[in-house]
């Protein structure tokens, strides 16, 4: 199963992430975002962070989850390459994120992502689960 796809937006980038359940879709949307930031093949799992998010609804949960990861990337210079959603409800998400500190000698950094936005934001279930989000680049 494809974990995520990028779609074109003139100035920014859209991600559609898929999952067999919603937890997996939340993990894959984060994976998609970090794939834009860096080449994840070279990223080892040396650091593990626990992340707790509370939001108004499951759409806001997507934005807050991604923006929290961007915050950690910006402040602690950690690139994440694997995500495990340990608990999920309509307004709460608990996760473990794995990765390592940026090492420019090994890591190929790609695009700066400013933030996840609410524009065209969708969380859908039907035949599998799907999350759509546009990132401000």
């Amino acid at each position: 199963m494809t974990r995520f796809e990028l779609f074109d937006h003139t100035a920014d980038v859209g991600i559609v992430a898929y999952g067999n359940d919603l937890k997996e879709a939340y993990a894959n949307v984060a994976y998609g975002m970090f794939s834009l930031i860096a080449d994840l093949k070279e990223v080892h799992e040396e650091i593990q962070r626990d992340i707790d998010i509370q939001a108004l609804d499951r759409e806001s949960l997507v934005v807050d989850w991604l923006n929290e990861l961007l915050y950690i990337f910006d402040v602690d210079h950690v690139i994440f390459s694997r995500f495990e959603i340990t608990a999920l409800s309509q307004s709460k998400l608990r996760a473990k994120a794995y990765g390592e500190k940026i090492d420019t000698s090994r890591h190929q950094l790609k695009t700066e992502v400013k933030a996840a936005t609410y524009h065209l934001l969708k969380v859908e279930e039907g035949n599998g689960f799907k999350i759509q989000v546009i990132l401000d680049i």
Partner: protein
Amino acid sequence: MLTRIDDYRWEIPITYKPGMRVPGLIFSDEQMLRHIQDEQSLEQVANVAFLPGIVGRSLAMPDIHWGYGFPIGGVAATRVDDGVISPGGVGFDINCGVRLLRTNLTEREVKPKIERLLADLFINVPSGLGSKGKIRLKGNEIDKLLLKGAGWAVAAGYGEPEDLEFTEDHGCLKGADPDKVSIKAKTRGTPQSGTLGSGNHFLEIQVVDEVYDAGIAQAFGIEEKGQILVLIHTGSRGFGHQVCDDYLKTMGTAVRNYGIDLPDRQLACAPVNSPEGQSYLAAMACAANYAWANRQCITHWTRESFSRVLGKSPRDLGMRLVYDVAHNIAKIEKHQVEGKKLTVCVHRKGATRAFPAGHPDIPEAYRKVGQPVLIPGDMGRYSYVAVGTEKAMEETFGSTCHGAGRAKSRSAARRSISGADVAAELAAKGIAIQVANIASLAEEAPAAYKDVAEVMHITDAAGISPRVIKARPIGVIKG
């Protein structure tokens, strides 16, 4: 959906979508409009017209393209008395903007040393994704920076007091309150102050290529073809992103509490006069000041590098600031609306203030000619300096475009060209480049942008910001 008003003005009637409070107005020509219609930006112009208290029209400048919430190139003024403020109308990169430095140097003097100059600048001005700044802010020093903006930087030894005179709002937006900013924003912003960043941010060494109005150019300190200029484009870095993110959450709740009906969640807003609106304005002012301090520090290092490489004193170099403009900001301003003077909140999302001659908010030295409007193009072609007009005051709340506008998405650009090809293309044109990340260069390829000359043709013909000079790049630093 569009009604043609004249060759450069197109209206989205108020009847286009139920819920629009005013019509939309797009500055464009027929050719450019075809491109604009391919994406969703016109729908976004219509959506902005839903904002409570919006006056005049929901405006779009000719560099309009699809944004998130507001279109990029969007301008909206809302009544302060009973209208709203929307963080989405400012964006994540609060006070992203450009500043232009003039010099006494000519292309002939600089060209032989351009590689050395870029190499020195590249070390002296921190840039690139994940880069750390070299300013160490201890304790509550960040609060002072947020309160004073560019003035903080000058007091700390970065630049000259005169620089403040030539910065929009003297590099300090009033009403900043660091207590309205989250700890997270400060934590994120502190190590990044004094960094160029990446993406479309840059530092460019340019040569004056064409002078359209010698008198006005002269007033701006631009004397002749061949003169060297430096253009710096950056914003408020992670600090601004965090402020926007924090307040989008606040506004998401406010929209429910105040019963505001909006077609896009990214337009979330609150009444200007509500506690939420006032807090956002105070936090946004902090981010605006952060950006001005950022550009001020970079200016200082730029002068240092020029002085070092060219072996001349700063005085001999004559590197005076021409102007510094914000192009992602909301400002409380007084405007004439339907014959009445009204205090409004002007949202400029990818749009530049363009005040006319005689306006009290522009530097004394430019009072007779009008405010310089700085319009960067893509890195392979050219940029413009234009000037604000009375017409802009009447029609666009004293605003104009902010750049070329993207023609291709980032992934489309990556598919069509490689970073190495872009570097080769620039080299063939005699443009030297230093880039933190060669792969990202493809996204910023000249071909990914519209021709800024076409954008400027429209703002010129429509009379909202006539061209003063055109400059082409000879050296580019990209984060």
